[in-house]
Every structure is written in structure tokens, then in C-alpha cells.
């Protein structure tokens, strides 16, 4: 071994060295006049998944796909399971299976949104993203709001315990299987979770209030930050309600007019295509009826608030109405609104879990249904970061022959690039990447919370690198977050 081992050394620069996932690179291209022409967020979409999954038996897929991402394994588990339901000929799960899966999904939404709120969002919202970075971190939160971190961790733990009870394992859950689930919820498990609901609800309401108050009180700053009009897409229930587990595709334009509505997601290829650009492995989805120039859209919490007609839980619906009032009849395009929207979904997920836990179907015995085998299927779910599409073909020997995934971050590819370009336009001065600019670019990317683990396979060494490139193609400046 040639590397010295210094166990007594106190200095350490843990570059993200030890993680191969989770890196972003931003290139800001200037024109001849030194103005921002384009910004490119490079998130390298993994290649090789199709090869990895091909030749595997279809029933393994809901478990294997969890290896795509350590943060959202449940979303992949459920999207794949939904597709495999179709493969085994089951169009409607038993009430027990449907509700167990929903409980698992809302547990995942709750823990994922709690993680984002505490770790990434709360310092920005409590202190403002323009404040001193030395304060705007978890230590600053500790000083100003000592209970908040413990709340965040406990909310995340609650969601993960729901996942454990429904998926069977903390990682590599096996709860959802083609045609149903492999367990129900015991009375003891139910009662343990129900006892925690009041405390979780209080904390969720508090998180909504923090996000709302920050947005409203700082609207003059955040309204334009990385913001632009866009189209939006999500699943909605048949009656227009938010349904994060199942529904039909709906897309609206920047005025709120429907571009797609009531479309079964099995036909997603009739509505969505993906553009390839030579500088990015990650594709750029767009709605076919609008074309590449105008058909791009955003997904995730902000999109869902804009797309649904209502939320079918009382506290979250009140919060949604306050949120959409910002748009004064039009969609809310405020990119920083993702944070507020995310907290409304946190509250909604908690209310959904409470409703499900009080439903005796969770103790039912009909776990799996069967039907006539099919060869092709699509499973779609609203994951924490947005619409997640899994599409598979299976041969007569039960082996997967084709897999196609469009993850939430891919849907948001154009939106993230536009937010970065807007921030660069607004905050770049001269040809130097200042700490302020780097910080603002981070804030813009954080709003989307891109799913880097599923969206990237590239190894790198820095969490975020920003480079400035002149019209002649030469690098003018480069800054790395370390």
C-alpha cells in the first residue's frame, strides 16, 4: 500500500471522493457580447441499465431496480411492480394490496420530503439564500431552531419505519410483487404508527408554515429567482385530485390550459418523446403535440400543485389553496415554490397515511391476484421528485427483453437548465464566477433536488463544478464547490 495512513491526522478534506454518484457540472456559455447565451447542467444519465436488466426474470425486476438509487428505491420498486402487475394480467389489485402499496409510497414521500426540508431547504428558508453561508447551514439552524433537526430526523425515521413495515426491508424491499404484495399490516404495527400521527402532523404543519412564510415574506426576491413560465405534467386521479400512486397523465401550459388530460399512462409514447442533444447524455423530454421548442415541461411538487384540481385531504388542501393563490388564476411558476409545494405534499402524505392506517383493508388476507400473462407493460408513479416511468417487454420465457425508464430528473432537465441560465443571467458580472454566483446556482439546483444517483453513472470528484466559457470556446473561469 502506498498511501500513508494517518490515523492521528485531524485535517481532512473528504472530497466526494468516496462517492461516485452525485456530481453536477454547470457550463455557462457566453456570447460575443459577454452575455449569457446558454447554461448547461451536465448530469450524466446512466447507461447500461437496460443491459443489466435484460435477460432477468420479470419477477426479479421490482427488487433489482431499487439499486438504481439509494434515496428513492421505493419509487422504483413500486413503478416496476405496477408494470409487472400488467405483465401478470392484473389490472386491479386487491384492496389490501393497493392500500399496502399506497402506504409504502406515502411513507417514502414523507421521509424523502423530510430529508430535503431539513438537510437542504431549511437553512435557505430560515435565513434566506442570500445570507452568509457560514450561518446558512445546519449549525445555523441548530442555533436558531434547536428542535428542527430532531424533528427532521424523526419525521424521516417515521417514514422509513412505514417503509420497513410495508416493504419488509430497509433496503431492497420485497413488499410489492407482481400482482400484489407479500404481507399485510398487523394491528400492532398499525397502532404503533397511529400513536405517532398527531406529533408528525404538528411537525408537518410547522414545516409548511416555515416554507410558506419564507416564500410570502420574501416574494420580491424569490418570485423571479430562476423562474420562467413553463408547462407542467403529473398524474392525476380521474376526478382531478392529487394521487401520487396512480392516475392518468395531465399536462398544462403556462396559462393553465390543458395540453394532455385523462391520458392512460400506458400510452405515454403517444404524448412524450425525448430529444437528444450532443452535449448531454441525459435526454430532454417534450410533449409531441408542442414540439421540442415549446413542449418541454416541469414535473415534481411545483408541477403537481399546478396540475391537480384539488387535494383530497383537508389540511393539505387548505395549504394548496394558499399556494395557488400566488398565481392569481394562472400556474405558479416560481421555482423556489418547489420548497413550499414539497412541504404541502409532506403534509398530504401524512394525512394519507393516517387515512390508510385507519382502514381495515390493511389487515385483509387477499394479497395477490393473477390473470392472463402479457408481454409489455408500463408502470408510472409520482415519485418525490416527479413523474417516474418504467416500461418493459417480457418474452415467453419470462425474461425481460426491453426496459425503458424516464426518471423525474430527466423530465426536469430543460427546466433545471433554464433555471441555471436565468440565475447566471441575473447574477453574473464580468467573466468571473464569484462565490455568490456559485451559491445562487446551487440554490436553483437545490429547488429541484435532482436525483443524481439514478440519473448519473459518471464518476467525478467534486460535488458541483461551474465553468464559464467564452464565445471562442475557451474557458474563462472555473469554480468548484468544495
Amino acid at each position, binding site marked *: 500500500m502506498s498511501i500513508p*495512513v494517518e490515523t492521528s491526522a485531524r485535517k*481532512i478534506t*473528504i472530497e466526494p471522493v468516496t462517492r*461516485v454518484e452525485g456530481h453536477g457540472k454547470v457550463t455557462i456559455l457566453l456570447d460575443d457580447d459577454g452575455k449569457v447565451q446558454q447554461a448547461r447542467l451536465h448530469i450524466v444519465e*446512466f447507461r*447500461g441499465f437496460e443491459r*443489466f436488466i435484460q435477460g432477468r426474470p420479470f419477477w426479479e425486476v421490482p427488487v433489482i431496480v431499487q439499486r438504481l438509487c439509494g434515496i428513492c428505491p421505493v419509487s422504483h420498486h413500486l413503478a416496476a411492480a405496477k408494470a409487472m402487475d400488467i405483465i401478470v394480467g392484473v389490472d386491479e389489485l386487491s384492496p389490501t394490496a393497493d392500500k399496502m402499496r399506497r402506504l409504502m409510497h406515502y411513507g417514502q414521500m414523507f421521509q424523502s420530503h423530510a430529508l430535503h426540508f431539513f438537510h437542504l431547504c431549511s437553512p435557505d428558508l430560515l435565513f434566506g439564500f442570500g445570507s452568509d453561508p457560514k450561518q446558512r447551514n*445546519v449549525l445555523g439552524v441548530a442555533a436558531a431552531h434547536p428542535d428542527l433537526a430532531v424533528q427532521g430526523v424523526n419525521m424521516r425515521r417515521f417514514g422509513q419505519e412505514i417503509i420497513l413495515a410495508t416493504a419488509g426491508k430497509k433496503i431492497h424491499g420485497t413488499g410489492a410483487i407482481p400482482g400484489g404484495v407479500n404481507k399485510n399490516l398487523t394491528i400492532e404495527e398499525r397502532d404503533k404508527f397511529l400513536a405517532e400521527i398527531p406529533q408528525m402532523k404538528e411537525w408537518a404543519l410547522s414545516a409548511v408554515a416555515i416554507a410558506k412564510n419564507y416564500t410570502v415574506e420574501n416574494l420580491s426576491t424569490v418570485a423571479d429567482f430562476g423562474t420562467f413560465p413553463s408547462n407542467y405534467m403529473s398524474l392525476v386521479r380521474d376526478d382531478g385530485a392529487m394521487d401520487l400512486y396512480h392516475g392518468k397523465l395531465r399536462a398544462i401550459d403556462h396559462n393553465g390550459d390543458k395540453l394532455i388530460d385523462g391520458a392512460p399512462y400506458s400510452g405515454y409514447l403517444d404524448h412524450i418523446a425525448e430529444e437528444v442533444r450532443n452535449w448531454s447524455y441525459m435526454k430532454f423530454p417534450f410533449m409531441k403535440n408542442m414540439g421540442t421548442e415549446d413542449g418541454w415541461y416541469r414535473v415534481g411538487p411545483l408541477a403537481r400543485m399546478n396540475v391537480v384540481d384539488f387535494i383530497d385531504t383537508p389540511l393539505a388542501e387548505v395549504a394548496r389553496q394558499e399556494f395557488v393563490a400566488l398565481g392569481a388564476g394562472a400556474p405558479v411558476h416560481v421555482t423556489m415554490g418547489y420548497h413550499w409545494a414539497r412541504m404541502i405534499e409532506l403534509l398530504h402524505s401524512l394525512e394519507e397515511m393516517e387515512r390508510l392506517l385507519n382502514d381495515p383493508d390493511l389487515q385483509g388476507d387477499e394479497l395477490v391476484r393473477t390473470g392472463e400473462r402479457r408481454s409489455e407493460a408500463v408502470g408510472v408513479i409520482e415519485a418525490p421528485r416527479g413523474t417516474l416511468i418504467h416500461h418493459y417487454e417480457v418474452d415467453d420465457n419470462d425474461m425481460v427483453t426491453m426496459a425503458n425508464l424516464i426518471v423525474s430528473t430527466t423530465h426536469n432537465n430543460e427546466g433545471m437548465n433554464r433555471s441555471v441560465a436565468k440565475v447566471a443571467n441575473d447574477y453574473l458580472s464580468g467573466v468571473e464566477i464569484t462565490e455568490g454566483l456559485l451559491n445562487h446556482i*446551487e440554490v436553483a439546483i437545490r429547488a429541484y433536488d435532482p436525483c443524481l444517483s439514478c440519473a448519473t453513472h459518471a464518476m467525478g470528484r467534486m460535488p458541483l463544478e461551474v465553468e464559464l466559457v467564452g464565445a471562442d470556446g475557451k474557458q474563462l473561469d472555473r469554480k468548484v464547490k468544495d
Partner: protein
Amino acid sequence: MKGKVLLLGIGNPSRKDDGLGPALAARFEADCPEGVDVDANYQLSLEDACTLSEYEKVVILDASAKGDGAFTFEEVEPDPAKEFSTHLILPPSILSIAREFFQAEGLLYVLGMRGYDFESFEEGLTEVAAANLEESEAYLRGWLTEA
């Protein structure tokens, strides 16, 4: 306090050498010294801060994307720097949270094992990484006898 030492393997076994951490964790699970707990996950997460508070020493076992030797072993200093993604939480950040919010007093180390192939979506280590795993295991077993 749960125990003296926790070995926490981090990485994705389906991405070739990124699976070094879980691979080493699996070896210690199969043959674990007394007083040592072993766990593994894809990546660090917020609740690991709470876990840190339950041990005197925690060693993160991870793949390293750079370095000339088989591995590095270093103690982590807390750093509250904020990441830009929930998908990338770094050891210094986790340690900061553990110290500030969970009164963790223990020490955190990172054993970074040199890997080479992180791009393939395949199981199994490369030959060189497998050799690095051997060296890392030998070093860590020696360190644990003194820890």
C-alpha cells in the same frame, strides 16, 4: 451507547467497484470481532447522524475514485457545508449534524478503497479492486484490535 465500533459500508453493489464498501461490510458480517457492529447502505443519509451518536467510533467503508494506493484511512473533521442535493451527503456534514443535534462524541473515520470501474452497471469487483479489498480488510482488522 450501542457498541464500541460500527463499520458502515456504503456503495452500490450493482456498479462494479462502487460495491467495495458493502463487500467489505459483508466480510466483517461473516467474521466480526467482538464489540463491532456492521451495517451497509447505498449512501450516507441524514439518520446516520443519529447512528453516529450511538458509537464510540464509526468507520465508513467506501469506494474511492482516486489515489495511488489500495486504500486511505483518515479521521473526519466536522464541516457543516451544505450540499446541493439530498443524493450527496458527505461524512463531514453527517458528523456536524451528529455533534450538533445528537450530542455525538465519538470519532468518525473513512476507509476509502481504491476502485476503478464505476461506470458499468454490473455486479462484481474488478480484479485490482478485489486485491485492494484484501489489503483494506487486513488493515482494518489490525486497526480494530487496537481500537
